[in-house]
């Protein structure tokens, strides 16, 4: 996929944060260096570990922010209630299909042992008999070498992720492993009830598991010592767009958008908005950059911290044009199996393009609103919903541009 510099995603090299928790060891830490920094991994008693995770308040770092302990506990409960043979499966998801995010790549490159620690801890806590790690082709070599360093990782199955936007969706991950088909599936039961080969399955983001690896050592109170009280700890964010230093940084969960920009060397003054959460996220206007990046504070923008994507839009760019390109990309990334999505998204992309170039702007904006209401919530996965979240957010935050385009002009600052 080629993108213009409006949504530049050129790989910038994997620069780890200078301080922090997850990347406290040296860059591309070996097993020895990893153990020197964090200490050996203790073997926690399963139920005690689950209680510790509950107390920590750790939520998923893959986008949905579901409490980590609850997903694990659900799988453990399903397994304990079933006849023998239906032991749980743990899948660590490092596929990171989001073009604006490379925090998982950075984590796997520099702290793979922390991810493995978390995987082993979680697997032990739920009695999982199969543990799989899904990563992109680029990360395979590094992860393979890391796994080879440690005998306790012998049972971990390494799987290569498909190179598409939705291949990281949980049911797509399971489908890829089970049937070599990386497309989401229709589900009437949760994966923790019936997933891979009908067994209780936990699909957890690699960063979430890295935090588990730390909580196993230092406990819930330590984890809660940083960040927002209702969603504590730290998270990795990927800052991209019109900032001096694009990269992956670790921040406490109550950091504001301003503070995230500062770490990237920006002051937010020449920005008009920032896209939070990724291509399925929402725009936050620059006047609200003092907002903390927590679930509660971002809710009024229709945004979520999600997988920690922060994409900054300089005021010399048109928010509608940038959004139009993203919507076009998303329309090309459907799995082509669900009607409302595979026909609705291209239709909306065409309308957005019209709006962005100023042709029949009002009519296109109205049609986009109608089509959004029509398509939302109708599909096997949340690809249409996420795309519609972005569309609705853009129409709201860039409303002045919609009016301007209808009158044949744009509000962006001339370059």
């Amino acid at each position: 996929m080629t993108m213009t510099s409006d949504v530049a995603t050129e790989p910038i090299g994997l620069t780890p944060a200078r301080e922090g928790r997850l990347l406290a060891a040296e860059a591309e830490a070996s097993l020895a260096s990893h153990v020197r920094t964090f200490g050996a991994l203790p073997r926690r008693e399963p139920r005690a570990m689950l209680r510790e995770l509950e107390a920590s308040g750790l939520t998923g770092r893959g986008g949905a922010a579901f409490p980590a302990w609850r997903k694990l506990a659900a799988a453990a409960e399903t397994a304990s209630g079933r006849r023998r043979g239906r032991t749980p499966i743990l899948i660590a998801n490092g596929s990171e299909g989001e073009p604006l995010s490379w925090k998982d790549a950075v984590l796997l490159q520099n702290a793979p042992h922390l991810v493995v620690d978390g995987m082993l801890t979680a697997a032990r806590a739920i009695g999982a008999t199969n543990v799989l790690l899904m990563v992109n082709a680029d990360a395979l070599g590094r992860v393979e070498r890391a796994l080879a360093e440690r005998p306790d990782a012998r049972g971990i199955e390494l799987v290569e992720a498909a190179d598409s936007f939705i291949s990281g969706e949980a049911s797509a991950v399971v489908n890829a492993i089970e049937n070599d088909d990386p497309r989401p599936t229709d589900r009437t039961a949760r994966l923790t009830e019936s997933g891979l080969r009908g067994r209780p399955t936990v699909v957890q983001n690699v960063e979430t598991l890295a935090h588990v690896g730390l909580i196993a050592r230092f406990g819930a109170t330590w984890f809660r010592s940083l960040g927002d009280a209702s969603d504590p700890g730290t998270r990795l964010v990927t800052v991209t767009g019109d900032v001096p230093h694009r990269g992956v940084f670790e921040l406490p969960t109550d950091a504001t958008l301003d503070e995230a920009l500062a770490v990237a060397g920006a002051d937010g003054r020449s920005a008009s908005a920032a896209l939070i959460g990724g291509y399925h996220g929402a725009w936050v206007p620059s006047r609200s950059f003092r907002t903390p990046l927590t679930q509660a504070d971002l809710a009024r923008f229709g945004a979520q911290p999600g997988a920690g994507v922060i994409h900054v839009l300089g005021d010399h760019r048109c928010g509608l044009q940038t959004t139009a390109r993203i919507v076009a990309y998303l329309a090309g990334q459907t799995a082509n199996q669900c009607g409302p999505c595979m026909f609705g998204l291209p239709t909306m992309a065409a309308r957005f393009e019209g709006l962005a170039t100023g042709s029949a702007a009002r009519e296109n904006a109205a049609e986009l609103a109608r089509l959004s209401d029509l398509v939302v919530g109708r599909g096997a996965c949340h690809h249409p919903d996420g795309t519609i979240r972005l569309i609705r957010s853009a129409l709201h935050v860039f409303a002045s541009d919609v009016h301007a385009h209808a009158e044949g002009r744009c509000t962006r600052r001339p370059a």
Partner: protein
Amino acid sequence: MSTSRHVLHIDWTRCDGRGLCAEILEGALGRDDWGYPVVLRGDPEHRTDLRLRADEVTAAEEAVALCPVAALRLLRAGVG
């Protein structure tokens, strides 16, 4: 009108928008621009399951049997 404990579940990966279900359950299911069923009741953000009224269950069973691509299923409420 009482609600039943049943839910009509649409498998979007199979659905081809042929429209038989929207005919059989006329007030509860509409069709979109491309022919696919639209649940006309309930949460506007979750429209893969139609919570059936008691008097709709028989019609729903017929829709399930007649769907030419077997994209419909009857489930008990609260599943999934």
